[in-house]
């Protein structure tokens, strides 16, 4: 009878509602502690977007049993996370900022881990004739030609490096040709691709970037373009809740022969992105 | 323990002003609770307002409503509206709801609700969603709901006005039964036939004033006021005052 069916639906509805109402608080209640331990690592968007972590983290888990949770933000933001105690480890690429972090007492010790390099990408037609292996000369030529240049302008390690190169070139980048996107590597490359502009990018993000348009690598190989990464444990003296054992284990693995060779093994289209360079005692 | 006396139900100098207009003015009467009382009058005479004032839904602007001399509003009363409002649940559940908000224990809800539904002849529709019932059925359901609370008095506002003749007849039967079972009845209506058949006493309102309070036959055969005469002749359908709220 129709109304019996209606009543059945009603009780079914009531039961589902009850189940859902029970489920919601369960989702909010503390879950059972994960069988493995996890740490929060604040790192940079360029590192994340290069795909390095996707490659490394399963090996970390296998070797140490630790689940590494990476929050990828700009270098400045990553270090701020460390200062607030919202991360256990910071893994960034801006030596001056890292040393400041240490000096302020927020980090325990800095370990150099690896470097990758920056490249300058630009339109195939290269209107400013920037091509070559001298980044400073290239930037001077871009500025004097007034060719469009897309900058991240987001307090990131890449942005800090870019500003250092401009300073070395003796140029203060200003004007309609200098576009500050205030965003990560990917969006900045998207913008550069859309505008046929030059941009400074880390090779990792560039290699995994799929929306290149007319952009190609124009400047590479200058030693100034090497981009050093450092890893630091957030100081448990400042933030007692920091998971110092697991954090240190992660760092130890990164600088171990196993970790260093895992870093070297990461390739995109046959090209190695990151070059491990930890030397004990540094 | 004898239940406290509710009657006489008195209006003393009762006045109600609604929207700047005097819907009721200096109304005085006393009801003993045994007679069935019909409130008659043209549209806008104040019948519905009077019922609502007696039931306690509308506070008096002047004067008072007294139950056995006390202004306190008793709980043992119920009202059935011209268009009863039903909840979106089954007919039975609507009655159960009224019972549960009035403190009837959960174990007793179903039994008492069934009793009430059965007495108005709606047992076969108990599980039907109340809102799909016909007008007459909903009116009877409203009566069942009110009656299930075992009130000492039920107010009915135009109980059969919106109904077709057969539905009206059924509702009339239920009203008779309710009274026979000992509940006082006070109702308003346009339908003079209903008033004549069902009522013992008539309260006749004209433009917010109580013009007559007489036994039913006396009212219909020998009305005392000029307004009542014109009303019975059908010459007073609309009041010059604004309509009942």
């Amino acid at each position, binding site marked *: 009878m*129709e109304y019996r069916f*209606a009543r059945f639906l009603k009780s079914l509805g009531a039961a589902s509602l009850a189940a*859902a*109402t029970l*489920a*919601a608080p369960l*989702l*909010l209640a503390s879950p059972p502690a994960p069988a493995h331990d996890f740490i*929060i690592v604040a790192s940079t968007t360029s590192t994340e*977007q290069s795909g390095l*972590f*996707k490659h490394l*983290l399963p090996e970390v888990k296998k070797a140490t049993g630790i689940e590494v*949770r*990476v*929050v*990828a*933000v700009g270098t400045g933001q990553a270090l701020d996370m460390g200062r*607030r*105690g*919202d991360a256990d480890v910071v893994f960034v690429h801006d030596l001056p900022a890292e040393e400041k972090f240490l000096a302020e007492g927020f980090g325990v010790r800095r370990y150099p881990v690896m470097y990758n390099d920056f490249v300058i990408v630009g339109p195939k037609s290269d209107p400013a004739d920037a091509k070559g292996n001298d980044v400073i000369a290239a930037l001077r030529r871009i500025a004097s030609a007034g060719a469009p240049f897309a900058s991240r302008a987001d307090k990131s390690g890449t942005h800090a490096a870019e500003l250092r190169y401009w300073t070395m070139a003796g140029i203060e980048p200003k004007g309609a040709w200098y576009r500050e996107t205030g*965003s*990560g590597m*990917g*969006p900045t*490359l*998207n913008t550069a691709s859309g505008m046929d502009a030059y941009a400074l990018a880390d090779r990792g993000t560039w290699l*995994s*970037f*799929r*929306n*290149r348009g007319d952009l190609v690598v124009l400047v590479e190989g200058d030693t100034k373009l090497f981009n050093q990464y450092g890893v630091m444990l957030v100081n448990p003296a400042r*933030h007692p*809740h920091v998971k110092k054992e697991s954090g240190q284990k992660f760092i130890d693995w990164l600088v171990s022969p196993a970790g260093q060779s895992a870093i070297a093994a990461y390739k995109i289209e046959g090209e190695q992105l990151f070059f491990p360079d930890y030397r004990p005692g540094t | 323990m004898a239940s406290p006396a509710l009657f006489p139900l008195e209006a003393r100098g009762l006045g109600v002003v609604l929207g700047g207009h005097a819907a009721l003015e200096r109304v005085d009467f006393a009801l003993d609770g045994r007679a069935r009382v019909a409130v008659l009058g043209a549209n806008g005479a104040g019948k519905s307002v009077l019922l*609502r004032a007696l*039931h306690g*839904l509308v506070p008096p602007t002047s004067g008072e409503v007294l139950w056995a001399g006390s202004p306190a509003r008793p*709980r043992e009363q*119920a*009202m059935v*509206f011209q268009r*009863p*409002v039903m*909840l*979106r*649940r089954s007919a039975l559940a609507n009655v159960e*709801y*009224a019972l549960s*908000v*009035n403190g009837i224990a959960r174990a007793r809800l179903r039994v008492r609700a069934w009793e009430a539904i059965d007495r108005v002849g709606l047992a076969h529709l108990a599980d039907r*969603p*109340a*809102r*799909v019932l016909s007008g007459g059925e909903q009116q009877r359901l409203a009566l069942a*709901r009110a009656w299930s*609370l075992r009130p000492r008095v039920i107010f009915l506002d135009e109980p059969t006005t919106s109904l077709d003749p057969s539905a009206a007849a059924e509702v009339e039967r239920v009203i008779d039964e309710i009274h026979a079972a000992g509940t006082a009845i006070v109702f308003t209506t346009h339908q003079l036939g209903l008033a004549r058949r069902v009522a013992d006493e008539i309260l006749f309102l004209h433009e917010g004033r109580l013009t007559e309070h007489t036994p039913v036959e006396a009212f219909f055969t020998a009305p005392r006021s000029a307004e009542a005469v014109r009303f019975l002749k059908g010459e007073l359908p609309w009041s010059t005052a604004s309509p009942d709220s």
Partner: protein
Amino acid sequence: MHDILSSFGIALRLIAGGNAELWRIVALSLEVSLASAMLACAVGLPLGGLVAVCAFPGRRAMIVALNALLGLPSVVVGLVVYLLLSRAGPLGNLGILFTPKAIILAQALLVLPIVAALARQFVEDAWREYREQLTSLGVSARRAVPTLLWDLRLSLLTVVLAGFGRAASEVGAVMIVGGNIDGVTRVMTTAIALETTKGDLPLALALGMILLTVVLALNAAAYAIREWSARHHG
């Protein structure tokens, strides 16, 4: 154009192929959005109902505030929740920053004003119809709230769905408080944002299509339920 079309093709293949990462992201999204919608409704529906029927000092200010909160920028909510949950903040010891719980909290705060404001509107309109009858039956204004909410359940279903839809489409606040951690707090919207910035359109498109489908399906179901109920329940 060819780019978009080929992306669509790859997207469809990803969906059909049962890509594990894809469906993990979808499952997490649905879970957190459902939880936050339920949380927001558990608080917002009664709140809206009470504001609708009860007279209390400051009621009108409350209504204005609720309506104003409808325009609350989500990144502001994200920022505030982040500051609350950060270790440097008052609730830091809960340790829920960068976990799904933080997302649920932020989304619930975003959805709450929507649910409360809409519920208030519905209940206020219904109260006008029900007030006399309920008062006559001896129901106080406060007691009437759950009755009205239940009676309006079909209309409120659209409110719940609106809340869920709002939760499921949130990006900014989720990014801030969740951290978009791969496998932990990466939901459909933040994954779409990430893949788009990486220029990986097929995955982003696939996720977008699924998200749209989910929301469409829920709304279609709600519509069907309302139609069926109107026919059978009046």
